[in-house]
């Protein structure tokens, strides 16, 4: 009889221990990144290194800028980030510099070759790459979970509301214009399926590059001439040559001056799928309102 | 045809061959005796080099070539390489190897994989280099030699194989008269020791110093006979359209070009 009592207490002890451990594991931080990998942290990482500008901006948007110990060389917003140590670019990161900064977590793009190398060195890597508006929301959620920020959802809602406000601010004459957004002078265009395309769609304008061509197709300049957009959006460096392209000087948009030219800083805002998408929407809306016929 | 009645070292039966689709050899039947120095001569484009390559089994051909009675095409490559040594027209790109190393390459058929040079190999290389008077500069690189010196080294390489049959294509290229004379003595010595030497030559006078001559024209053997025989010499004069005359000069036969002769029809 004593033997059976002993057995019960042992079993109970084991059950309790198991529950405790399971509970502890549940309390430990787990995030699933964009590769589908579950990354486990004992606690929320305090030293964060980002190798993608949009991720840098998102961390700061969540108010956790102070946790950043280093970024890639292209991260330049907000101002405080410029003083942080740089570890190279997305294509040529400096592994040694990264290790030297002793990060608890490294945030990078899913397409980066860095992830596996860092993991083999024992660094925790969370791969996140926002490409659409929905992605931005999702990444905010994951980051909020990772950084222990409970109101990540609110931050997103503010941004989203900002985009909506920009859309509502557009006068009627600016809606339903057809727009051509050129990303660089190869020419690569931003199609409907891209992040920029989504913003344009929410502003209520039409993109001459349909989704079926892909997010950033390299198009034939002739295509633009045939589509004859009402308005052209282009970066600063590309604008100079537009009129010199064969057949382009006859484009209605060019003749009427309906071209939105964005400076390099503004272009940065446009192309990064991140917290400044509301600013991007406002820039676009402002220009559309000005230049619409 | 076998003028001397001695064993046949190399024979071709019904051999035809083409190069790049064009027929070059149009049916060759030939028997070359052992212990004999045979020269193959003829006008340009007769197919002499091609015949030599076919005899060495270096070109695809129809018909049969036999080496000491055995079909050469069925012989294992290394066995054939030990029994037959071939010296082609100069196509070397190896300017870095020393004279010694180049000559040692002639011992490849005798060396097994990964084996270093044996005492036999070293002795054979020394004999070959001495025979071509190249021994003293055996440490020089091939690229630093003159044309004639290089030719002597390549000859040494062919000699180093110490094969029963030695086929040489234009062996006198770049050689000055003293070394041509050395070559003559060398070949005569080899034939005297029972080796078979076949040389494609442009120098008719030199060919006339040999044992037999094979005259080739337009892909066929026109004549095969002793070098000293009058019938052979008349055939020679005829194949070259009477542009040469063969004269006796002391103990030697000499071919002299006919100047002032109108070009024949």
């Amino acid at each position, binding site marked *: 009889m004593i033997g059976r009592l002993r057995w019960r207490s042992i079993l109970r002890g084991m059950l309790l221990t198991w529950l405790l451990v399971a509970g502890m594991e549940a309390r430990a931080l787990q995030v699933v990144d964009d590769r589908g990998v579950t990354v486990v942290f004992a606690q929320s990482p305090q030293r964060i290194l980002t190798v993608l500008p949009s991720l840098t901006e998102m961390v700061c948007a969540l108010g956790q800028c102070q946790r950043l110990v280093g970024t890639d060389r292209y991260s330049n917003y907000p101002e405080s980030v410029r003083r942080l140590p740089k570890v190279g670019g*997305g*294509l*040529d990161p*400096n*592994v*040694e*510099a990264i*290790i*030297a900064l002793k990060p608890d977590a490294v945030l990078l*793009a899913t*397409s*980066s*070759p*860095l*992830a*596996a*190398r860092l*993991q*083999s*060195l*024992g660094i925790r890597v969370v791969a996140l790459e926002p490409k659409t508006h929905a992605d931005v929301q999702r990444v905010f959620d994951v980051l909020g979970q990772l950084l222990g920020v409970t109101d990540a959802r609110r931050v997103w809602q503010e941004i989203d509301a900002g985009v909506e406000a920009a859309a509502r601010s557009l006068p009627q004459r600016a809606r339903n214009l057809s727009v051509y957004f050129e990303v660089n002078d190869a020419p690569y265009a931003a199609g409907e399926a891209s992040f920029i395309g989504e913003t344009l769609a929410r502003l209520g304008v039409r993109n001459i590059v349909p989704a079926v061509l892909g997010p950033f197709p*390299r198009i034939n300049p002739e295509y633009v001439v045939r589509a004859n957009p009402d308005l052209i959006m282009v970066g600063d460096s590309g604008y100079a040559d537009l009129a010199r392209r064969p057949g382009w000087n006859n484009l209605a948009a060019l003749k009427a001056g309906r071209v939105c030219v964005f400076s390099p800083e503004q272009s940065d805002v446009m192309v990064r799928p991140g917290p400044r998408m509301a600013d991007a929407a406002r820039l676009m809306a402002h220009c559309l309102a000005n230049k619409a016929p | 045809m076998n003028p001397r009645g001695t064993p046949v070292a190399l024979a071709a039966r019904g051999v035809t061959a083409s190069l790049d689709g064009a027929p070059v050899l149009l049916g060759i039947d030939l028997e070359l005796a052992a212990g004999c120095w045979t020269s193959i001569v003829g006008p340009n484009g007769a197919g002499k080099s091609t015949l030599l*390559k076919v005899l060495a089994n*270096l070109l695809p051909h129809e018909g049969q070539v036999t080496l000491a009675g055995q079909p050469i095409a069925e012989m294992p*490559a*290394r066995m054939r*390489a030990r029994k*037959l*040594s*071939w*010296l*082609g027209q100069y*196509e*070397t*790109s*190896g*300017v*870095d*190897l*020393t004279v*010694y*190393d*180049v000559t040692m*390459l*002639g011992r*490849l*058929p005798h*060396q097994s*994989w990964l084996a270093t*040079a044996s*005492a036999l190999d*070293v002795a054979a290389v020394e004999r070959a280099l001495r025979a071509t008077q190249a021994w003293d500069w*055996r*440490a020089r*690189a*091939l*690229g630093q*030699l003159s044309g004639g010196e290089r030719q002597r080294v390549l000859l040494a*390489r062919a000699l180093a*194989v110490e094969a029963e049959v030695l086929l040489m294509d234009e062996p006198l290229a770049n050689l000055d008269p003293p070394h041509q004379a050395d070559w003559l003595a060398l070949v005569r010595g080899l034939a005297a020791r029972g080796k078979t030497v076949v040389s494609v030559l442009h120098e008719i006078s030199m060919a006339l110093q040999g044992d037999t001559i094979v005259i080739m024209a337009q892909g066929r053997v026109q004549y095969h006979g002793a070098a000293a025989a009058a019938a052979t010499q008349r055939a020679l004069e005829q194949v070259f359209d009477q542009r040469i005359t063969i004269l006796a000069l002391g103990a030697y036969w000499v071919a002299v070009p006919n100047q002032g002769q109108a070009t024949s029809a």
Partner: protein
Amino acid sequence: MKRPPVQPDPPARRVGTVAAALLLASVVFLCLAIAVGSTGFESILMLRQDPVAWQIVVDIRAPRSLGAWLAGALLGLAGAVAQGLFRNPLADPYLLGSASGASLGVAVALVASGATPFAGEWLVQLGLTGAAFVGAVAAVLLTLLLARGVGHSLRLLLAGVVVGVVLGALGQLIMMLRPDVMLSMQAFSLGSTGFVGWSACALMAGAWIAGALVAWALASVLDGLSLGEATAISLGLPLPQLRAALIVVLALATGTAVAQTGLIAFVGLAAPHLVRSIVKTRHQNFILLSSLMGALLLLVADGLARSLVAPQELPVGVLTAVLGGGYLLWLLQRPGTRGGLL
């Protein structure tokens, strides 16, 4: 045992001296290379106390530097084999299209597997190396097919350039159709030892040992080939099989190096010439010396790439071109020795 007469001594001694010098220089520069990086010499000084410094030196700099040496050794080996096999001093793993073939292989494998090129796990690494190897072999065979054999130098080089350009274009097409691999491929074509870890080193070391052994065993074939193809056959060498074996060595060496470090040009071309300018010898020694020279070249270039503008890095391909090309240029403008290549 009677000492065999005559193997001429001076060249043999020189070969030994050169080999020893290259090895010694490699050791010296290896130590120097481990001492440089974005965190400078501090990491060495703090080795005992700071575990991060330890990790930097042992897990990052050491395999990187050794990896540079091994990749250079593979490329030098491939260059010597290529130049001997094709009897052409301009033959080089890049000029024969094998490097473009290797990158195309990696691109196809990336698309098929969705992994990144510099993964640490063995299997993925072997898979990508295998794909690079297959790509390299395919490219060289295509070049040989187009050139219809190795007889004609000009045709061979032209065919190699064509194959390189076409396969490169195919790789670019893949990148355009699948932009998700574009970033990985772009990082790959920059050419860098930045992602080389210990497993990559082990892989390269294995490939080098295998390739060097086979090439060393077949060195006499290359010597025989230098006398001309017909002569080589007349010496009883089974050319087709031996050539195939050497092409496999060429492709394995190029493919492995390219898969681990990306595209680093010029080492395979320059290393054999650099060796020739110092000592002329049989292929048995030449291949090994060329390998050691390539290794040293890339090691030094990589060290300089990391230290010249520290904490930033220069692309290592620029430095191999400057170092190797600079020396070759100097050789070219000297009054030449009679009969030498330069």
